């Protein structure tokens, strides 16, 4: 016996090898012929996402197609990852609008604070996860890209149960 070999106490009269092997074979055979398989055929089938899923952003628009954003500057302020770049502008009527609105999705940590803080309910996180691109620059989403997104937006809380109870 070697040094420090773990000694197992076994009921020597009860354990078996051949019979245990046969029962194991029966079990695997049962699984093999069982029609239920757990694989999800991913590109063809997809899991549904939960309502509170936080994915890449989407900017909601008004009826005229302009972004709802009023360039108040709350989201770049609250953003813990400092990934939102906002340059505000003002039109002749004195309405503020974003001249530049860019989100670096690589920096983003998907905390959802921007959606929470937005007074106009303009910027939202999306229920979306297929984000592959061919180069890194494409991950900086500009305003045009953010408004063009069509995926459903995240519900950060359930309106019927706002305190999460």
């Amino acid at each position, binding site marked *: 016996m070697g040094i420090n070999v773990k*000694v*197992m106490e*076994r009921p*020597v009269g009860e354990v*078996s090898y051949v019979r245990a092997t046969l029962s*194991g*074979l029966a079990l695997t055979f049962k699984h*093999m012929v069982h029609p239920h398989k757990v*694989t999800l055929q991913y590109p063809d089938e997809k899991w549904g996402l939960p309502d509170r899923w936080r994915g890449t952003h989407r900017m909601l628009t008004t009826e005229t197609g302009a972004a709802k954003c009023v360039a108040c500057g709350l989201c770049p302020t609250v953003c813990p990852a400092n990934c939102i770049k906002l340059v505000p502008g003002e039109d002749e009527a004195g309405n503020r609008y974003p001249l530049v609105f860019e989100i670096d999705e690589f920096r983003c940590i998907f905390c959802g604070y921007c959606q929470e803080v937005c007074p106009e309910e303009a910027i939202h996180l999306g229920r979306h996860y297929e984000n592959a691109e061919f180069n890194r620059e494409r991950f900086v989403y500009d305003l045009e890209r953010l408004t063009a997104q069509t995926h459903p937006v995240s519900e950060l809380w359930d309106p019927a149960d706002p305190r999460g109870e």
Partner: protein
Amino acid sequence: MDPMQLPPSAGVFLVATLIKLLLVFTVYMIAVAYTTFAERKISAWIQDRIGPNRVGPWGLFQVLADGLKNLMKEEAMPGAVNKPLFVLAPALAFIPALIAWAVIPFGAPLPTPWGRIDMVVADMPIGFLFTLAITSIGVYGIVIAGWSSNNKYALLGGLRSTAQVISYELAMGMSCVVVLLMAGNVSLNQIIVQQATMGWNVLLISVAAFIFLVAGFAETNRLPFDLPEAESELITGYHTEYSAFKFSLFFIAEYANLITASALFVTLFLGGWDIPFTQWDNIGPATVGKSLATIAMFAAKVLFFMFFFIWVRWTLPRFRYDQLMSLGWKFMLPTALAYIVIVASTILGLDALGLVRGSWAYLLTMMGLNLVLVVILFFILDRGRLISPADTRVSGARLEALRRRAPRRANFAPGEIR
């Protein structure tokens, strides 16, 4: 006499052998490729998955994609390897499995206008010894791969393979002696003829069949005996340093060995191409129908055992090294030796009693004896005493002594999970 039933002339023999060679090689290579596919599919089904299904209908072209991928990959040659042996090893692992097929008969003789063609590439009178010799060479591929890689994991894999094959080759050879006792011949054709007339060896000498099967698993390095590649311990063992098609060749060798081991088991213990419960395939003149039916029968048997090998692989975990050695030396070898003595004395006794070989009394005696031995072996002796190594067979006073020596574990109550 009908010229279709006569042995062919030398020229026809040569041409026929070349054609058989080509056919067997092609079918064998396609079978090897699709065995990899079968392994992936069956493993997936056993694990409640679906398996490869995206390349071609039902994923059937997956093997082509895999092969192409391995051909296109960069072939890395590590700097410190022994180059000639490093290149030689994959071929040496694969070729013996292929050569062994030369002597395995796969069907009843085929009558042609030019004479009767045997459905075996080379009908050697010493066919059985040839397979034993050739399949033993296969392990050199693995050993040389492990050694020439200049990698400690690869070397350990090669060493394990050596030890394992030496241990199990003995038991395998001993179990084959019993087959030779039954057939009284070393020609594989004669062994099949004996089984066709007397009944399959798996019923007459079941213990030898069991030992041969277990040793076959060990010889082909399949789970539960895949210690040479043991991913969790040795990365992948002997083929750690291999890449691209050299790596692929080791895989081809593994599946080629699997098919060859199945075919050998079928030939030695399951009557080869013999169709059970009938005699029309063995007696009378050769016909094309008989040839095709027996080839189909042989294929069915071999396919079943290939499935069995895969099935066992995805059921059993790997043996520990001491368990492997203790199973080989303390159980398989003594059992095989004792079994030779038992079968030899039974055959001697039955012959002395004047019973004709192949008569019902003879067969029933052999089957009864085997039934008793199987029951003793699997249901009475198989109580944790046979296969588990000495270390785990501790109980009673010895265990108490060990516990006193190791105070850390002294507080465990019996039956508690540790």
